[in-house]
């Protein structure tokens, strides 16, 4: 980084830029200075808006599709949707024991929704915040999955389903027995309780944090790449930094396309696996 006046101010500008991009549009109990959520009663409007909008997009597109479904000669988009459904149901069949009509739609929702929310990451980082600033909205975080609230919400929903089906399949007593006697038998009950508790709690936490971490880091890298063109490309230096930014951005974009798909897939598969574990009666 250059040692000039503009460079050093650009340094603090860099931090500001990143901070600004990582701040949600907060409504309610928010810090007036940093605009961060100060308490529990703070609503991240951007996260809610984009996730709900993408959910609505899914519903609208599928409603439009299923309205004129062609059962005999599928073509174009219907083929695409059918292959996604086939992919999901194959995964469910392969990893889920028994039969539960909720699992496949749940897995499909997780996969498509998470993928779409992740995909928001591939939209140029400054595009949507810039458009929002025209309407007087100064803070906007466009990727819902870089908000821990989203990922944790999904994983806690899955966790709730895990508990519900565990109790439903194993019975309340069976579920309790799993905590008491699970890894080491009946002579180490306290250890068992701690171990199983950690094991169970690790499921939603790892599910949420894995997705959040990957997407947050990906977003950060996009921001850093954007900074190359934004702060360093001044005057003649732009001839060097600007092409570098383009190349790096393209590279990370392609790599990230893989990551968002992979993360959506992992979230889906782990959801199926955890719920499958909840459905197996471990009386052996």
């Amino acid at each position: 980084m250059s040692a000039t006046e503009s460079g050093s101010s650009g340094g603090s500008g860099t931090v500001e830029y990143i901070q600004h991009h990582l701040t949600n549009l907060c409504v309610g109990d928010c810090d007036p200075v940093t605009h961060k959520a100060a308490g529990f009663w703070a609503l991240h409007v951007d996260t809610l808006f984009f996730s709900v909008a993408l959910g609505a997009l899914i519903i609208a597109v599928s409603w439009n599709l299923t309205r004129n479904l062609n059962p005999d000669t599928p073509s174009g988009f219907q083929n695409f949707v059918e292959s996604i459904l086939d992919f999901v149901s194959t995964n469910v069949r392969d990893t889920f024991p028994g039969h539960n009509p909720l699992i496949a739609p749940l897995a499909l929702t997780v996969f498509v929704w998470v993928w779409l929310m992740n995909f928001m990451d591939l939209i140029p980082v400054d595009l949507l915040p810039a458009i929002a600033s025209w309407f007087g909205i100064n803070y906007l975080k466009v990727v819902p999955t870089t908000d821990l609230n989203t990922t944790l919400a999904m994983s806690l929903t899955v966790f709730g389903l895990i508990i519900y089906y565990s109790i439903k399949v194993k019975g309340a007593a069976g579920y309790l027995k799993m905590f008491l006697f699970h890894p080491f038998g009946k002579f180490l009950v306290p250890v068992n309780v701690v171990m199983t508790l950690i094991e169970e709690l690790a499921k939603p936490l790892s599910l949420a944090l894995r997705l959040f971490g990957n997407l947050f880091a990906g977003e950060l890298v996009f921001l850093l790449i954007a900074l190359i063109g934004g702060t360093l490309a001044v005057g003649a230096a732009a001839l060097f930094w600007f092409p570098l930014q383009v190349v790096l951005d393209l590279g990370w974009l392609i790599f990230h396309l893989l990551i968002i798909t992979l993360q959506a897939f992992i979230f889906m598969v782990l959801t199926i696996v955890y719920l499958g574990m909840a459905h197996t009666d471990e009386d052996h």
Partner: protein
Amino acid sequence: MNITVSLFGQVIAFVLLIWFVNRVLWDPVSKMLEDRQKRIADGLAAGEKGKHELERAKKLAKETLHEAKTKAGEIIAQAEKRASEIVEEAKQDARTEGDRLLAAANSEIDREVNRARETLRGQVADITVAGAKRILKREIDAKAHEDLLKELVTQI
């Protein structure tokens, strides 16, 4: 990255989305896919059945044709036999008729000959009587010599 009330908003959104996806996308499309699978299976089964049916029909047609051919051969043979029989019968009839005609003709001839002979005999008797008359220069009593004359006639 504070946990805020947005978490619950997201939970509600997620649950609603699952419900909607199940309702709008998963249910109709997977039902359609199942229907299609069933229809394809049915179609294949029907095709297989049709193939079997065709094979059977072909076999049946072949058998029928073969039977018809055999029967036709039999009928022809029978007809030929019957024809030869008829010809044989006709021949037989003709032969008997010919024989009959021949016999009738023969008996007619015999009858004619006999009649001629009778006539001739009578004439000869007459001539003989006339000759004898002339020889004896007297009347022969036909009545008195009737026996003799008759004997004479039969001898001629």
